[in-house]
Structures are given as structure tokens and as C-alpha cells.
């Protein structure tokens, strides 16, 4: 009865529902009204033009980091390094954006491409090591995250500014921010990056589903040995896949640097954009469209949750637990899948 497609849609929906339900139970257990809590969440994400704009602002990098993780995942690689790739992308975008002025038609694409290139480089290293030496990409990418974090802080203090703790602001000609978008969303920081993110989702779908290269990526993801036997160059595929994955994550950094902030503050901890991207990719079933939808959900949760402490009195720690529960159920979708399959078997 269940077609595969229906199945793929049902599982994440049920996960989200269970997560919200479990969150409600937790809120009840601690003596808070879950209806008020979720109402505040909803209002905080969609309650006014401003909050809607802020939600879109948060969704934009989530789509790109989700795509980054998913793309690597489809070729059998686990890119934990999206976080570091975001950071180097951010640095590169701000560097290009702030160090000179040029007409927007040159400057903006250049800054965006610089971010993609930096992210790609940060993805290329683990890809190369994995392909040639068999070093596990998870370990390399985790370490590269730390390298990116601390190198970026050094760059901000000594190259991108005069010993300050945030970089110089980017020139207007490299900015993705738009007065028009700000006006219709009551001065939120929504920017044109969302178009880039949506286009990137389309690109991912196109590469994976409509090109020979994409077919090879997926084949390597399913079974590297069989792919090799079939005459595909597995090593090349691993490296290329990590490069594309890194480029997506680098673009997410550009969204922050050129769109949301317009500069780069020094970070004492990770941005979590890359790590959340893992959850986004999981929930979105590693497909372009699915990721856009799940990024939307995560963005709304993230922005809306900020509203829960001040309007519904739910402490922000509890909000984090609720969000973690939703992610937990998403990640454990295997259980839901199993339950649904049981259901299906009994019917037969």
C-alpha cells in the first residue's frame, strides 16, 4: 500500500509530530503550558513580517549546510566538516568583500565564489586524504573544523581588522542585503541569499538526478566496490563529491558574511550552522526539495524558540530540550520506519 515516496514523506512528518508531542509532555511535566509555549514559538517565527523575515534569514544558511552534508552523504561520505567549511567561506567572503571596491556586478559574484572556493578547498583536503590514503573523513573534518575556527579568529584580528575582534565591514557593492526586502519585512535582516540557496538546492537535484556524474556519485555511495568493478573512478568521485559538498557549506558562510552580518565577528565557539546542517539533511532525506523544507522547519524552530522565554515564560534551557527532542525523533526515524513496516506486514 505504501509507496516508497509516500513512505519518505510520512517518516519525517511523524518524527516532527512525535518531537513536538514529547516536547509538550516535557513542558507539562515542568509545569509550563505547552499550548502557550508552542503558540509563542509560532508567533516568534511567523507572527509578524519581521519574524518571518528573520526566519527566512536563518533558513538560508541551513539550506546550504543541509545540502553540503546531504551531497557528501549521497556518495557515501559523512561530512562533519560543514562547520569549518562555513567558517572559511565566511572569512573568504568578508575578505573579498572588505578589501576592495568594485562594481556590484563583479564584486558580489566574486565574493560569493570566493566563499564557495574556500569551502571547496576545506572539503578537498579530507576528500584527498580519504581517496588516496583511506583516512576516515569524519576524523579529518572534525580536526579541520578546529583549524578553521582558530585560523579565522587569527585572520579577523590581524588581517581583516586592526586588532579588533570583528572584521572590517564589507563594501556595499558586495552586500546581499536589500533595502526592499528589509522594508517589506519590517527591518529584518532577510537578504537575497535565499535565492542563491534555493538555486543551490536545484543544482544539487540536477547534478545528482540528471547527470552522469551524479549517477556515479550515487553509485559510489551505494557500493564503492561494485562501482569500481563497473569501471568508475571511485577516488575521483570521492574527491569531487567532497569539493562540491564543501562549496555548498562555503556558500552558507557567504550568506552570513555578505547577507546577515556584513562582517565577521571573532568566534569563541562554533556557529553550529554546519552541525545543524547534519540534522537538516537527515530530516530532509538527503534530497534537494526535502532539505529546503526541513531547513525551513529548523529555521522556524531556531528563531521562534527565542520568543518562548519572554512571552510564554518557558526557560530557554527547556526550549533547547524541546528542540533536541525533535531532532532526536528525526534521527531515530529508523524506529518509525520499522514501526510502519510492521504495520504494513500485518496488513498482508
Amino acid at each position: 500500500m505504501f509507496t516508497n515516496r509516500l513512505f519518505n514523506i510520512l517518516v519525517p512528518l511523524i518524527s516532527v509530530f512525535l518531537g513536538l508531542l514529547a516536547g509538550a509532555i516535557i513542558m507539562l511535566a515542568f509545569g509550563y503550558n505547552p499550548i502557550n509555549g508552542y503558540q509563542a514559538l509560532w508567533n516568534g517565527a511567523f507572527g509578524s513580517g519581521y519574524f518571518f523575515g528573520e526566519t527566512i534569514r536563518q533558513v538560508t544558511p541551513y539550506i546550504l549546510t543541509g545540502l553540503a552534508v546531504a551531497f557528501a552523504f549521497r556518495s557515501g561520505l559523512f561530512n562533519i566538516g560543514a562547520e569549518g567549511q562555513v567558517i572559511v567561506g565566511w572569512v573568504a567572503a568578508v575578505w573579498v568583500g572588505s578589501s576592495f571596491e568594485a562594481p556590484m556586478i563583479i564584486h558580489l559574484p566574486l565574493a560569493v565564489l570566493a566563499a564557495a572556493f574556500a569551502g571547496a578547498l576545506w572539503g578537498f583536503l579530507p576528500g584527498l586524504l580519504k581517496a588516496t590514503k583511506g583516512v576516515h573523513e569524519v576524523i579529518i573534518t572534525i580536526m579541520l573544523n578546529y583549524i578553521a575556527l582558530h585560523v579565522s579568529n587569527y585572520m579577523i584580528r590581524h588581517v581583516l581588522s586592526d586588532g579588533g575582534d570583528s572584521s572590517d565591514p564589507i563594501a556595499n557593492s558586495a552586500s546581499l542585503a536589500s533595502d526592499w526586502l528589509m522594508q517589506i519585512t519590517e527591518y529584518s535582516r532577510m537578504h537575497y541569499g535565499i535565492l542563491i540557496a534555493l538555486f543551490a538546492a536545484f543544482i544539487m537535484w540536477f547534478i545528482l538526478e540528471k547527470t552522469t556524474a551524479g549517477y556515479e556519485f550515487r553509485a559510489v555511495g551505494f557500493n564503492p566496490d561494485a562501482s569500481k568493478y563497473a569501471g568508475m573512478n571511485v577516488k575521483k568521485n570521492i574527491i569531487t563529491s567532497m569539493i562540491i559538498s564543501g562549496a555548498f557549506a562555503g556558500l552558507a558562510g557567504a550568506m552570513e558574511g555578505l547577507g546577515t552580518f556584513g562582517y565577521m565577528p571573532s568566534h569563541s565557539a562554533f556557529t553550529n550552522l554546519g552541525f545543524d546542517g547534519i540534522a537538516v539533511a537527515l530530516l530532509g532525506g538527503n534530497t534537494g526539495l526535502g532539505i529546503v523544507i526541513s531547513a525551513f522547519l529548523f529555521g522556524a524552530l531556531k528563531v521562534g524558540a527565542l520568543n518562548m522565554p519572554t512571552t510564554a515564560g518557558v526557560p530557554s534551557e527547556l526550549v533547547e530540550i524541546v528542540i533536541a527532542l525533535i531532532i532526536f525523533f528525526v534521527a531515530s526515524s529508523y524506529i518509525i520506519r520499522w514501526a510502519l513496516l510492521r504495520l504494513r506486514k500485518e496488513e498482508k
Partner: protein
Amino acid sequence: MKKNHLFLVFSMLFAAVLLLAACGTSDENANEQEDAGASDEGTTEGTNDFSVAMVTDVGGVDDKSFNQSSWEGLKAFGAENGLEKGAGYDYAQSEQDADFMPNLNRLVKQDYNLIFGVGYKLADALGKVAKQNPDTNFAIIDSAVEGDNVASLTFAEHQGSFLVGVAAAMKSETGKIGFIGGEESDLIKKFEAGYRAGAKSVNPDIEVEVDYAESFAAPDKGKAIAANMYNSDVDVIYHSSGATGNGVFAQAKDIKNGDPDANVWVIGVDRDQYDEGAIGDMNVTLTSMLKRVDVAVQTVAQQALDGEFPGGETLTFGLKQDGVGVAKTNEEAYTEEIGAAVEEWKQKILDGEVTVPKTIDELETYLDEL
């Protein structure tokens, strides 16, 4: 049979959607009611409908440092004026830098009269939001933001540091004391300059070792630097390095653990760090340079309530305003003799006899004149 199960699943989802949709539509009414309730409470409390809120930086209100201190100030203000949390005063916590703007805007939309931004990291966001909302008053801590509706609250950290420098110089037996800073910036240099000036004023021959950990969140580095200093005969270290300073305390306590007679001391910063230095019956915290963010927050909130909000001004909280001070919690270590000397220098600063240097350049001129 098959259809029944499918139907069940769909009806569950449908119910979920309905539930969410119901939340979505009824919210406006509920919100209005809440708002009405809030202002009602305000009026029945006998004051007026004045309300004040703050946005933390990523440290959060339980950071044992200036976020917590600010929140304590707001709570004290609330208690004094019969306000309650959620109705009259509240805080919004930022989980990441990107949250500053939405948090500030949310509080503006909730019609708070005065909104504090805690920490210089919020300066950029607060400046923009203040410009877009000229009818709301804002205050920024540790930074200066332009605008008629913004009050900038800064502190004379150099004055407090001068006094703990006096205490350090008097406590030291080896004639060598240390300073550990977080990130090398104008703000932390202010601490360093004051401290060195204070120490040299009491004992011109004293040696001051200075090192920077280049991070406010690296206790391991703090510990390593402190170990180095204590090994080279330094016996009092003043840290101005946030969580990095926890490593300084850890090192001093380690030494004290191995040799209870060891003469090692730490001077805390921002809040009274007496509790950090406790080890059994002993305590390695000589004193702390108090930065009374709570006093500043409470003062400005009160001024706003009285209709005298200092918009457009940069307020400096120094010794005179009780904005900085010296902790006297460790009575055993912080002897009367030291206390008397500190009071004496404090009086000199208050009388204008001594002008404490704020920068390293000023420090050099100051030392030349000694």
C-alpha cells in the same frame, strides 16, 4: 484492513496539523489578553506601566560575570519598585551572535520602555535597532553607541585596577607581581595600566610581569601562564581574563594543595571571586576588582523610571559613583594595613590628587613623574 491503517495514520497527522493550525489562529487574541494582563498587573502594583528588559550576550545570565551582574541589577530594580519578572522586567538570552537583533527587536515589539544590551558585542546590533525605533530607550554596557535614545554605560576599570595594584604591591613578599589579560584590547589594557600604576605608586621597585592569554575562554592557557609566573617568584597575580582566569585560580590552588604555607595569591575581576579561591579552610583570593554593572543598570533604570533617562550621554561609572571597587571578603589575607592603604589611595583618586592612567602611553608618563 489496509485502508483502515492508512486512515489511522492520516487522521493522526490531520489532528496534528489541526492542533498546530489552532495555535496559529488563536494566538493574536491570546497575546492581546496576555499583554492586557501584564499592564493590569503593572498598574495594580502601584507604580506605573514602566517596564525594562535586557539582552544578554552569548554568556547567558548565569555566567558568573557581567551578564549575571546586570541581571542582578535589574532584579534589584524590580524588587525596589514592586515589579515582577515577566511583567515589568525580563531578559532575553542570546544563543549566538545572530540572535542579538531579533532579541532586541522582540523586546521593542513587546513595548519595553528601556532595553539594555549587555556587552560591547551588542553595540552594532543595538545601534541599528535604536535608530529604527526612536521611541524606545536603549542602554549599552561597556561600549559607546551614538543616538539620542541610547545611554552608553562604561566603567573606570583603571581606577579599580589601581587599587588592587596597591593591595598586590603591599601583599607581595618577593617584590614580583603578575598580570594576566584575556585578549589584547584597549579595554584590557585599561586594567593593565591601572594595575601597574597602583603597584608602582606604593613600591617603585616592584616588578610587574604581564602576559596575555589571547582568549577569554581558555582556562588551560591561564593555568600554564600562572604556573610560569609563580615559578619565577611572582606571588600575586591579577587576572582580567574572564573564564581564562579560572585556570589561574586552579594553579594557585594546586600550589597551595602541595604546600599549605606557599605564599600565592590571585586577584579576581568583575565580581567578588572569593568563592573561586576557596580550598579547604584556606582561600587564595586576596581580593577582587569589583565592576558594579548591577549598580549601573539599577541606576540607569531608576533614572528612566523617574523620567530622567540620560539619552545620548556616555556615563562613566568610577569610584565616585560606586561603579568600581575592591572586595574585602578575605579578611585574613586582606589585612587592615592593606585596607587602610587602599582607602588612602582611593581618597587621593576621589580628591583628584592622583589621575589614574588609562592607556600604556599614559602609564609611562605617570611612571616618569613618580
